[in-house]
């Protein structure tokens, strides 16, 4: 784009991923001229999924990452999805350095679509047990919203995204607008029935996921089709069977003719006009030319991905805001939290040996939080959800060679069932878990590097122990064998659920954003990705980011129409 191109817009959206796609869609659809900034390359649905139809034998290393790449990129190499089939969708450590004051695996995906191409597609609603958490248990600050504020926006987003789910009628996991669920397998159903019968406070449900099990006209209009159960989602889906902004909101926004997508554009900072008392635009560094360009708009949505949204604001300094845009309270970059994914309990089950599942399911079973829900029961705050999954496969005996080995490898004899619960613990946002700008180190575009200082605490450790005890006890009672607990000791960040730093709150003295994810001190800037979260709940957060964004964008649109922004 040269100088002749119009650089004035109604709205600028920084980021094209999970939440940015939604901001872009809402503005463009309602007739607002919208600029979508993306720091990475463009990715077009279907056209830029080079591995989507490759068979296992077509991968040079059968999925494995070459040693040279691993050694140069130790952080991203620890991510489960950084494999030969999807590694082109991840940002490399070498290109994008940051400072780890404590170990933090920051997993990034710099291209149009961001991490929405790669997510695990779990979409559980949050409930008032989550939104009321900080106030009840005395940490962070009170959320300025409750479930009723966001419920209609969950519905709004779910209908467009397409969520497969079952209406379960559970307090801790509100129902939504669902496409039909898939089945649970034999042992998942058995576990669900056992838990329902024996634990009045616990539930096992079909884990809701962003897959089109029965596409509706709105999904077909996006060019998406029914999920085929390939479970190769991380490569990009030729059917658009799962939700990503690349297959859905971004092309939807562009189709209106009101949106312009500018890839290769790192947001450097937001421009604040001291006289007008408002933000007027965004400074962008073109990653190819390294040229700095300014774009202007009436409203700015910051959806750069939790920690990068913090970075952009911290780097947006002015006479009025010497410590970062909107940072009168001094809490910007603080109270960052995440999900604790360290623990697992696994076992085997020797029932249902005459049965199995056929085909592949993109989801599993889900146990919403059951600890400390109605009252405080333990010596730690909050609790954990977990995914329960089971399956059985062929266990080939390879303790031989020659024709016998070949015969063994052709065996179709199924082994016993393997089962497991993966832990997802709520962490408490703390003032000491921070991100800040490094004073000296810069990235290749001259933007200060983010310095990350985040760690687990005693509450997290206690919660893991309780999870081991509770799940092992359930497993023992139901008759699972070989029960094993394990702690993968992963650093924070590898959960890829980092949240906070630009939290919402009622009081401008202790928060950056109000109940609309709008800056208290600069009312035409909104932050609606994970950075705005006051606390973390135990549910996967993407659905909530999308709902928050749609809600905030429509509020901003109303305010613009009224002339308030």
């Amino acid at each position, binding site marked *: 784009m040269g100088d002749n191109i119009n650089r004035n817009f109604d709205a600028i959206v920084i980021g094209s991923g999970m939440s940015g796609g939604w901001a872009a869609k809402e503005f463009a659809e309602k007739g607002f001229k919208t600029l979508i900034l993306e720091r990475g390359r463009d990715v077009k649905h279907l056209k830029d999924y080079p591995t989507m139809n490759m068979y296992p*034998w077509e991968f040079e290393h059968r999925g494995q990452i070459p040693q040279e790449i691993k050694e140069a990129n130790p952080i991203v190499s620890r991510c489960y999805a950084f494999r030969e089939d999807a590694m082109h969708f991840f940002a490399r450590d070498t290109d994008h350095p940051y400072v780890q004051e404590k170990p933090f695996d920051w997993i990034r995906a710099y291209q149009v679509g961001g991490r929405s191409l790669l997510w695990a597609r779990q979409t559980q609603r949050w409930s008032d047990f989550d939104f009321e958490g900080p106030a009840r248990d005395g940490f962070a600050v009170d959320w300025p919203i409750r479930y009723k504020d966001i419920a209609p926006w969950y519905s709004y987003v779910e209908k467009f995204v397409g969520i497969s789910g079952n209406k379960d009628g559970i307090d801790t996991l509100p129902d939504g607008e669902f496409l039909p669920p898939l089945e649970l397998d034999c042992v998942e159903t058995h576990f669900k029935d056992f838990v329902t019968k024996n634990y009045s406070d616990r539930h096992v449900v079909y884990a809701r996921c962003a897959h089109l099990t029965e596409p509706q006209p709105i999904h077909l209009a996006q060019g998406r089709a029914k999920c*085929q*159960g*390939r479970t190769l989602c991380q490569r990009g889906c030729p059917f658009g069977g799962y939700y990503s902004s690349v297959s859905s909101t971004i092309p939807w926004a562009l189709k209106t003719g009101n949106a312009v997508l500018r890839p290769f554009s790192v947001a450097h900072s937001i421009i604040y006009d001291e006289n007008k008392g408002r933000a007027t635009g965004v400074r962008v560094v073109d990653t190819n030319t390294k040229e700095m360009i300014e774009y202007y708009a009436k409203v700015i949505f910051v959806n750069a991905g939790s920690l990068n949204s913090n970075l952009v604001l911290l780097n947006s300094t002015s006479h009025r805001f010497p410590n970062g845009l909107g940072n009168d309270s001094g809490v910007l970059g603080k109270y960052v939290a995440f999900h604790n994914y360290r623990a697992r309990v696994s076992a085997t089950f020797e029932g249902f040996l005459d049965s199995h*599942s056929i085909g592949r399911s993109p989801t599993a079973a889900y146990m919403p939080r059951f600890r400390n829900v109605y009252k405080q029961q333990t010596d730690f705050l909050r609790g954990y959800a977990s995914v329960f999954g089971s399956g059985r496969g062929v266990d080939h005996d390879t303790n031989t060679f020659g*024709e016998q*080995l070949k015969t063994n*490898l052709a065996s179709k004899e199924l082994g016993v069932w393997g089962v497991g619960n993966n832990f997802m613990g709520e962490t408490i946002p703390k003032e000491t878990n921070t991100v800040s700008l490094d004073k000296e180190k810069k990235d290749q575009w001259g933007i200060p590097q983010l310095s990350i200082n985040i760690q687990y605490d005693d509450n997290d450790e206690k919660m893991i122990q309780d999870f081991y005890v509770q799940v092992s006890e359930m497993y023992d009672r139901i008759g699972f064998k070989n029960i094993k607990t394990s702690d993968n000791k992963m650093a924070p960040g590898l959960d890829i659920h980092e949240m906070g730093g630009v939290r919402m709150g009622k009081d401008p003295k202790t928060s950056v954003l109000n109940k609309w994810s709008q800056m208290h001190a600069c009312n035409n800037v909104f932050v609606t990705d994970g950075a705005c979260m006051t606390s973390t709940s135990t549910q996967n957060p993407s659905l909530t980011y999308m709902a928050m964004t749609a809600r905030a964008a429509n509020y901003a649109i109303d305010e613009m129409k009224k002339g308030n922004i």
Partner: protein
Amino acid sequence: MHLNRRQALKQFAIITAGVSLIPSCMQDKNKASIILKNLQVGGDQEQLLAELAETIIPATDTPGAKDISAHLFVLKMMDDCYAKEDQQKFMKGLEQFEKEAKSKTGKSFVNSAAQERAAVLTEIEARKDKKDDLSYFYNTTKRLTIQAYTTSEFYLTKVSVYEMIPVPYKGCVPVTKQVS
């Protein structure tokens, strides 16, 4: 269904252990037939690996390790996906393997009869839990040979069929005996 090996070979032209396994034009005895960045592997060592892989998974009435170029996959993986120290262990173990085979049969592994090769492997299988270079070499070669075989086009289209688009998911159905 058993497929005649020759038919199978004809049908699939199975040389797909890896996309970039490009045989060099001039077959030099002292060089491997594929380009390696890290390993120094001679042509005779490659031949040994081929015969070892074939002893692990022999051709019967269906393709074996050599037919699917499993030995080249072993080399490719070892060259690209393993740390320097593992590559060194592998190469040392390869040399020890050849010595071990010679001391057992009096001839090189490549020139041994099938029965003699089997005898060598039986002995090494019995000591495979030892933490030495020979065990490392053998266990790694075996694991990668099995991986090459079970992820080959032949295996995934004729033995255990991989469906890119599987049947619609059913959570709990009776296991039916498969006709093989």
